[in-house]
């Protein structure tokens, strides 16, 4: 929907923290993520501060060419939050999902080889209402978009 406006609102915080993850080196150019050892350090960024320490590298550019689809603004339950991401950035190599307020920010990284559509859906856990970032690596550069997903309380005994 209105990724643009949302972007404008929080570019400041989004950009710095994403840079960090990118800089933490979770992807090496030209290599499939699955071929590498699991990138422990990238998956163990607990807070903004911690990610901050790894600052360096180029900032991801906010992009309207990354779009969330089949991703509701409100999740009825945080244990399963459907997320769909499409990248129209040419030469997209990988798509990552980050959840700002989760204990560990990075949820998943997908490598997209040539011939595979830069578009996928999956499901993530969210500890609470948070911004969710779709980070795309294309032709060696990073691009980002984000949206807030609210996690609601449910049930009669909770």
């Amino acid at each position: 929907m209105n990724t643009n406006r949302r972007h404008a609102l929080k570019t400041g915080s989004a950009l710095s923290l994403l840079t960090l993850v990118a800089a933490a080196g979770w992807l090496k150019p030209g290599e499939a993520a699955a071929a590498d050892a699991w990138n422990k350090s990238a998956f163990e960024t607990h807070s903004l501060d911690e990610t901050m320490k790894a600052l360096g590298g180029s900032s991801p550019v906010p992009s309207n060419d990354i779009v969330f689809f089949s991703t509701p603004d409100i999740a009825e339950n945080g244990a399963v939050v459907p997320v769909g991401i499409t990248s129209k950035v040419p030469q997209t190599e990988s798509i990552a999902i980050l959840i700002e307020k989760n204990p560990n920010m990075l949820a998943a990284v997908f490598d997209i080889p040539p011939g595979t559509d830069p578009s996928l859906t999956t499901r993530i856990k969210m500890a609470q209402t948070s911004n969710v970032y779709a980070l795309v690596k294309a032709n060696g550069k990073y691009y980002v978009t984000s949206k807030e997903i609210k996690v609601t309380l449910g049930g009669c005994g909770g």
Partner: protein
Amino acid sequence: MRTRIVGRCVASIAVIGIAVSVVYGCASAPAKNDVGERAEAMMKSSFKAHGQATLARLDQDETQRVCSEYAERALPPATAERIEKANLDTIRYPADGNLVGDWKSGEKIAQSGQGFQYSDDPKKPAGANCYACHQLSPKELSYGTIGPSLYRFGKDRGYTDETRRYAWQKIYNAEAFAACSNLPRFGYHHILTEQQIRDVVALLVDPASPVNQ
């Protein structure tokens, strides 16, 4: 033979194997209480005590019994009046006369659905789970609609002694105002403590409460 069976049809079901037509005969026969008694007996043998939820919870008081009986038809006005009067008589007020506590604590109580389930720790304070059924603070998107919206409860009614007293009574025992209401009797059943009721009253009637913004 047919008439006799229909007349005492529930007893017959229990004793004989019964024919289909007889069963349908029962549906229109005035033997409802007998089905009710059998249902009650069946429940008592089908539930098991678990933690704080003992089998005594299946024993109905007069209000529960009458409200179950009339669940599918209109409650006669005289019966409704009798129930309301009996429940009004159960309402107790704080010795110091202070009905209004802290709305912030009231908000927490309104959010919590813990308490009295067999899975709950009986040592922990219970919540009132108001948001399960009511809209209160407009900041909480996740609210239910079984009960009416209570947004602006105090503002709309006026911040008067009368409003405060009504809020206390409603929370303490709602059956005093509307027989067979869905609202639990938080005071009568000792679900909430005196202080907790004060705090929930505050959530409803304090001009500073988010409910009245």
